């Protein structure tokens, strides 16, 4: 299921003194099964952009097509869109409300018009997918740990069986372990369920290891839209907009300046290790 965005602009509080252009002339195509990172610093418009994908924000101008259909043409398509594009918000506290976790996860499927037993099946399945076992089902969502809450929130969306999963800052406020777990989980979902995943983040480090395409946003515009390796070449420009390339890119760059023959698109520790070992081996040979 592809998403196509054409000349999308969005202005907050249009026509008042508080009006602010959040997005200007965005053009974007997202194909089936992609794993995308949307990166930008606070206020770059990344959250605003993804909230357009499931119709929460209505564009000031421009068109959004999902499955080739203009989502703002008919009301009905807008409703089914919520099931197609699942959006998990930054704070799980914003959506957890039921007396127990299972009921909370059932909220989405129930809204889709499923029966209680079907909704429960979907909810159980989603909970297992995010790695929450039966013992958690009857707990109050407010008694969970930060990482578990986030999993429960993701399960709440997954239970609706979307074909595109959008996660807005899924790692905010988590410790490094929790962060890695959530990111691993999204990668797993992408592989297992074959759904497209869009990760919104302000941290290159988080996203670089996982995604196959990075969209860099700055001041409501798309700055880069390419594979991570190609985006990280623009270290200077990224820094200028308040972002940074992953640590390894800097290491590789420094090594290169020292005369080592390494490729600085190596953005993960593993890749970097291979590159460095390779370069050292090459050097030894030369000697």
């Amino acid at each position, binding site marked *: 299921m592809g998403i196509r965005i054409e000349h999308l602009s969005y202005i907050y509080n249009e026509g008042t003194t508080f009006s602010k252009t959040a997005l200007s002339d965005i053009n974007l195509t997202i194909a089936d099964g992609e794993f995308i990172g949307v990166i930008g610093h606070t206020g770059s418009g990344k959250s605003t952009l993804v909230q357009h994908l499931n119709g929460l924000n209505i564009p000031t101008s421009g068109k959004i097509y999902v499955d080739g259909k203009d989502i703002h043409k008919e009301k009905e398509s807008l409703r089914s869109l919520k099931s197609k594009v699942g959006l998990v918000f930054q704070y799980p506290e*914003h959506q957890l409300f039921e007396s127990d976790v299972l009921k909370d996860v059932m909220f989405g499927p129930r*809204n889709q018009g499923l029966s209680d037993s079907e909704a429960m099946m979907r909810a159980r399945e989603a909970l297992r997918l995010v790695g929450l076992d039966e013992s958690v089902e009857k707990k109050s969502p407010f008694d969970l740990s930060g990482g578990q809450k986030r999993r429960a929130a993701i399960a709440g*969306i997954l239970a609706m069986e979307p074909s595109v999963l959008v996660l807005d800052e899924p790692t905010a406020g988590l410790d490094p372990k929790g962060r890695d777990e959530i990111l691993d989980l999204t990668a797993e979902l992408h592989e297992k369920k074959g759904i497209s995943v869009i990760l919104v983040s302000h941290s290159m480090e988080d996203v670089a290891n996982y995604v196959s395409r990075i969209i860099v946003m700055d001041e409501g515009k798309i700055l880069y839209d390419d594979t991570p390796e190609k985006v990280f070449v623009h270290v200077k420009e990224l820094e200028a907009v308040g972002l940074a390339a992953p640590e390894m890119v800097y290491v590789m760059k420094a090594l290169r300046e020292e005369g080592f023959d390494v490729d600085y698109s190596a953005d993960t520790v593993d890749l970097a290790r291979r590159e460095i070992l390779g370069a050292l081996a090459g050097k030894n040979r030369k000697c």
Partner: protein
Amino acid sequence: MLKDITLGQYYPGDSIIHRLDPRVKLLGTLVFLITLFVFGSPGAYVLASIALGVVISVSTVPFRYMVKGLRAIFLLMVITALFNLFLTPGTILFSFWRFRITEEGLRMAIHMIFRLSYLILGSSIMTLTTTPNQLTDGLETGLGFLKKIHVPVHEVSMMMSIALRFIPILMDETSKIMRAQEARGANFSEGGIIRRAKALVPLLVPLFISAFRRANDLAMAMEARGYHGGEGRTRMKPLSYHRKDMVAFAVMALYVLCQIGMKILKL
């Protein structure tokens, strides 16, 4: 809908009204509201309209923005007007079936609509041009004399300023929660009254929980900084009257005198 509530919202600007001492604006609003109730003749309303018009145009707050605040009480105005229209006894203008419209009723209905909208406009011009902090500062100093009879003025104004401060935060939070639930297929705007009331549960539970959490955090932060009530507390920006405030007082007095004069002359 949430965006329509302008009462209690600040509209940034740098007009003379914005820069007046909050105590002047509080007193001015109070005086204006009292005159609305004391003087009810058409002439008094013409004068009130002129006063309101001048203040609004000086304040640089767009009129359109002010009228938005009226939308919130539109239903109340309609109901009040209808009740007055049909239930006031007097000379009958015309009647159909069981309903009678009297001359007095018509007059009363129009009177009520004007009074209600002027009440809202008059008080929103104050809140639109005064930051919540200034407002509570003004209240605290303006009502300071009540401390002598053991009214906890400081505590009340502190509560007020916290409450006002939290309105935009909670509104923001509300819209975020609504979005998060809408992403899960919740529908807040369709269905009958019972369905709509039920639909509020997924909104209210997270909202209450976050309000409690915020209150807790705030209490902790205040205690950590040694807050212990108003005793011996000093201000960063002490309020003081300037010349423009005196001019404002004079204008106010002139307005009241005009109203009284009109009443005596039976205009």
